[in-house]
C-alpha cells in the first residue's frame, strides 16, 4: 500500500524507482564522516572536506563561521555541515573551476560551542537556469540527530546588496521579512551565518 500522496511507482516509459528514503544521520555521524576529528585515527589520512582551498586560486579569502541553533535556542554540538560553492569566477570544481579550489567543505562544528568554520574564497555569480545571474551564494546542507532529511539552505552576503536585489531566488520569496535569515554579515573578520532550525528567525530552507 503506497501513500496516496506519492507519485505513481511506475510509468509507461519504463521502470521507475523511488528515491531511497532518508534517515537521520544520528548522533554518531562523525564516526563515518570525520573520524579523525573524533579521535578515530589511522583509518583515513585526513577527514574529507577539511580544506576547501588546496592551492592558490584567485579570489578574496574569506572565513565563514556560524552555529546551528534548535527551537529552544541551544546550539547543536552534533551537527555535520557541508557547503558547496563556485570559485571567484562563478565556476564550479569539475566544470572549469579554478585549480586549487575544491568548492566543497565539511565541518563537524566545535565540540563545546558547536561553531563551524570554513576557510574559502568569496564565490562569483552563477547563472540561474534562465540565464539571469544569481547573487553570490554558498549552498549549505545540514544533517544531525533529530533531522530526518538533510536541510538545504543558501548563504548570501549582506554586503552584496545590488546583486541580492536582483537574485532570482531571493526576490521571489513571498515572505520578504524572512530573507535576512539568509544574509551573512561580516563580524570580526568573518562572515557569520547562524542557522536557526525553528522559531524566531527560523532560517529559510529550500525544497530543491
Amino acid at each position: 500500500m503506497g501513500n496516496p500522496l506519492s507519485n505513481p511507482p511506475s510509468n509507461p516509459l519504463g521502470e521507475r524507482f523511488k528515491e531511497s528514503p532518508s534517515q537521520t544521520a544520528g548522533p554518531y555521524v562523525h564516526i563515518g564522516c570525520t573520524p579523525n576529528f573524533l579521535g578515530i585515527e589511522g583509518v583515513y589520512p585526513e577527514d574529507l572536506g577539511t580544506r576547501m582551498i588546496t592551492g592558490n586560486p584567485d579570489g578574496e579569502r574569506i572565513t565563514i563561521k556560524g552555529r546551528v541553533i534548535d527551537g529552544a535556542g541551544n546550539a547543536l554540538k552534533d551537527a555535520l555541515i557541508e557547503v558547496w560553492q563556485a570559485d571567484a569566477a562563478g565556476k564550479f570544481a569539475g566544470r572549469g573551476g579554478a585549480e586549487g579550489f575544491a568548492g566543497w567543505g565539511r565541518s563537524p562544528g566545535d565540540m563545546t560551542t558547536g561553531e563551524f568554520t570554513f576557510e574559502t574564497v568569496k564565490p562569483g555569480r552563477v547563472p540561474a537556469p534562465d540565464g539571469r545571474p544569481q547573487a553570490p551564494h554558498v549552498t549549505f546542507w545540514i544533517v544531525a540527530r533529530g533531522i530526518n532529511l538533510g536541510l538545504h539552505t543558501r548563504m548570501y552576503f549582506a554586503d552584496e546588496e545590488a546583486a541580492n536585489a536582483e537574485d532570482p531566488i531571493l526576490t521571489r520569496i513571498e515572505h520578504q521579512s524572512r530573507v535576512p535569515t539568509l544574509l551573512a554579515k561580516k563580524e570580526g573578520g568573518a562572515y557569520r551565518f547562524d542557522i536557526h532550525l525553528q522559531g524566531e528567525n527560523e532560517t529559510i530552507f529550500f525544497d530543491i
Partner: protein
Amino acid sequence: MTNGFTARDRAWHPPALTPLYKTSVARSPRFAPIGAATSLSEETGPVFGHDMLGAKDNDLITNFAAPGEMAIGPRILVQGRVRDEFGRPVPHCLLEVWQANAGGRYRHKKEGYLAPLDPNFGGCGRCITDENGFYEFRTVKPGPYPWPNGPDDWRPAHIHVSVFGHGFAQRLITQMYFEGDPMIWQCPIVGTIPTREAIETLVARLDRAGSIPMDALCYRFDITLRGRRQTMFENRMEGM
C-alpha cells in the same frame, strides 16, 4: 547539459516533525521549505576519485585492527548498486558507512552504553561505485543498542550510509537494516518514514549467491538517488 533533478517526493521521505522520535521536536522547521528550481549550484557537486581510497577503506574488519588481527562478530559482505530513479547506474559516487560493533557499541566519546568496545573495530568505511554503479564493503554485523528516547527503545541492527551522487541536490544520508529483524517494526526512527513500502526499500536482503563459503554471508542493499530529468523541451542556455 543538465535538466535538473526530479523533485523530491516529501510524502515518501520522513517529514521533519516526527514526535515519537523526540529529538525531532526541537530540530524541525515550522515553516514549509520553499520550492526552488535547481541551478548549477545544486546540479553540480564534489567529485571523488578512486585514487583517494586506501586499500582497506572498504574493509571494516581490518581497517582499524592491529596487524594480523580482526574485528569480532558475524562476518558479512554488503553489496549493491547505486542507481537513479530512472534505473540508470550512478558510477563513481562516494559512499561512507558507519556503524556500532557486534555488541551494539559505537566508538564515540559521547556513547556510554555498557557493551564493550572491540579494540580491533573502528566502525567507519568508504567506497566509490564502479562504472556500473556497484559497490561492496566488508564488515561485521552490528548489534542492536538501547537509546534514550522512550524508556525502553532499541535501535534495530543498522549501518548508516552517506551517498554523494553527482549533484549536491542528490546528497543523501540513510540507514540500512537487515532482513527479518523484528526490531525494525518497533523503532521510532524507522517509524518516521510514512509507509511500509518505503521502509522496505531500506531493508537489505540476505543474498546467498553472494556469500563466500566458510567466510562471510552477503547482504544486498541497492540505493536509489534522485534522477536527472530527461526532457528536451526546456528553455536552457547551451552549455549549461
